[in-house]
């Protein structure tokens, strides 16, 4: 069971998400008034799609379980697979965290676009490129500031988008 969950973690997360959305769709459509001037009404499509989606999710879950049962022969230690999974998702999670903080800085804290963008660009580039000398770090910081200022100028004065 534990091995099944770790090996299919991403697929299961996706199926749970889809099932949750389908359930919400069914619940939301049950609150809608009945059709008055046309045969189907606004609730028909959400209801139909919710039911179809839940059915497909159930089929996929069964398929995952059956596939796992047919390939259940590995002797790899269970803890190893969990450790590898976490390591693999570290950078995407950090990137996502940086994006959320970047958004929060601009929307809630009202930090200037040029400042938040320079910091975001520098941090993410350093995180991914892992510069091996202070000179490279400075270059990244300078490039980030220049890019942020240029983007601000272009979008504010050319496209009239003042983020």
């Amino acid at each position: 069971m534990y091995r099944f969950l770790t090996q299919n973690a991403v697929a299961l997360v996706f199926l749970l998400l889809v099932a949750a959305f389908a359930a919400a769709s069914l619940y939301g459509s049950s609150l809608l008034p009945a059709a008055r001037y046309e045969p189907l009404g606004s609730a028909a499509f959400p209801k139909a799609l919710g039911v179809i989606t839940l059915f497909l999710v159930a089929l996929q879950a069964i398929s995952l379980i059956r596939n796992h049962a047919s390939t259940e022969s590995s002797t790899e230690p269970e803890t190893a697979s969990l450790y590898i999974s976490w390591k693999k998702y570290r950078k995407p999670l950090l990137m996502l965290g940086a994006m959320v903080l970047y958004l929060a800085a601009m929307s809630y804290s009202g930090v200037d676009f040029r400042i938040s963008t320079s910091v975001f660009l520098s941090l993410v580039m350093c995180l991914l490129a892992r510069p091996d000398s202070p000179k490279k770090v400075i270059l990244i910081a300078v490039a980030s500031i220049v890019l942020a200022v240029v983007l601000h100028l272009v979008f504010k004065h050319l496209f009239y988008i003042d983020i």
Partner: protein
Amino acid sequence: MLDAYIYVFTSGLIWVFAGAGIGIFVGSIPGLSGAMVISLTLPMTYFMAGNDALLLLVSMYIGATTGGLISATLMRMPGTEAAIMTTLDGYPMAARGEPGRALGLGVLASVFGGIFAWVMLAVLSPPLSAIAVKFGPFDIFAMTVVALSLIAAVSQGSLLAGLIAAAFGAMLSLPGIDPISGSLRLTFGFSSLDNGLTLLPVILGMLVLGQVLVDCEGTFNGPKAKRAKARVSMHWRDISNYMITYIRSSFIGTWIGILPGVGGTAASVASYSVAKATSKTPEKFGNGAEEGIISAETANNAGTVGALVPLITLGIPGSVITAVLLGAMVIHNLNPGPLLFAENPDVAYTVIAGALAGNLAMFLIMVVATPFLAKLAHINKAYLLAPIVVFCMIGAFSVSSRFFDIGVMLVFACLGYVMTKARIPTGAFIIAYILTPMAEQNLRSGLVIYDGSFVPLFTNPTSGILLAIAVLSLVWSLRSEWKFRKKRHTQVS
């Protein structure tokens, strides 16, 4: 029609060259896709006329498909998925000291395939649209059902994964104002959802940021690929020497491109397989065969232009990129679908002329700029991902100056990442997201016209045939999957 060609080849040329140049550049960098750059460019086209915007995006589409040839040949890394087959013979030829020859064959094949498919596009589109404009609501509904069934059926992964992606995409397109009654639905009291989930943040999140998160998993400081000299060298006699391969691959590419959901990759695989099967020297394939490069590159560019046929005549996107192009039409208040030729003929003919101009621009840029682009293809992607995120943020914000849209984009980035990791096709999701409102509106309008009866949906010849095709495609893919599973089960046991 002539006005559109005059416009494209005079004042529109700047957008053609800009689009083709950017597309080639992005296509040449492994991991960056045409869908990504076109999605990123979409918000910037808000400030352009619809014709200019589509010209830019179509040229970008053509450039991105061809750009994959550079890294596929020089680095053995296909810049785009459609260039996978090119690596099989392009790289061995470059490795044995003929990179210029390999690139030359690829460029010539690309422009030949592209122009062949443009002829088909120009010839087929007007009569097809003349037929399509007579379609009633039930016919249009049946047409979208066919598109969705084909897209789910040929999705990467399994049929079930494709169907789930399509159902999920369809479901998420529903919140907001009901298109028929005008009442709100599935907003759960959030006023931000009153207009539904805006298309652009969904596309940017799912296709661009989702891929950025996937790319983050990679290592960026590995050994650098060897840089080969990349001057393009081509001989016009290659066309006469390999005329049959050129024409056959163009036919295969165009035909497969027209089919919804199949795309340039399948076109190049099919064309390559046929070329190998019919070659007098099949043993050379995989070792730098000239026919191998020609068949793959001709077909993938022909497929790219071929995919524009269902897009401008029926409003059916055949691939993720054409779905984004459809989104561009919606954003520019054009009426994609059968009415495009009737209501906006200038736009329809601009797209057709743009396909020709885009191919010619691509040819010139590839010949002149390939040595420079080959160097750019070695850029460390670690320096590109963060600016891409910033562009996405600005793009999502530009829709309606709401940070809510950026939040939506981040949610869809997570979804795109999870779907990619779970091998659920994001293409089926996006296409269903775009097509479902059209399907719902037409089905309900049809029911109003026919007093609530579903019978005409099946008895009307056009909609009946289209629904039969949808059922057949699903049955065929179910059968293929069942056979595949049975074969795998036999092998395991």
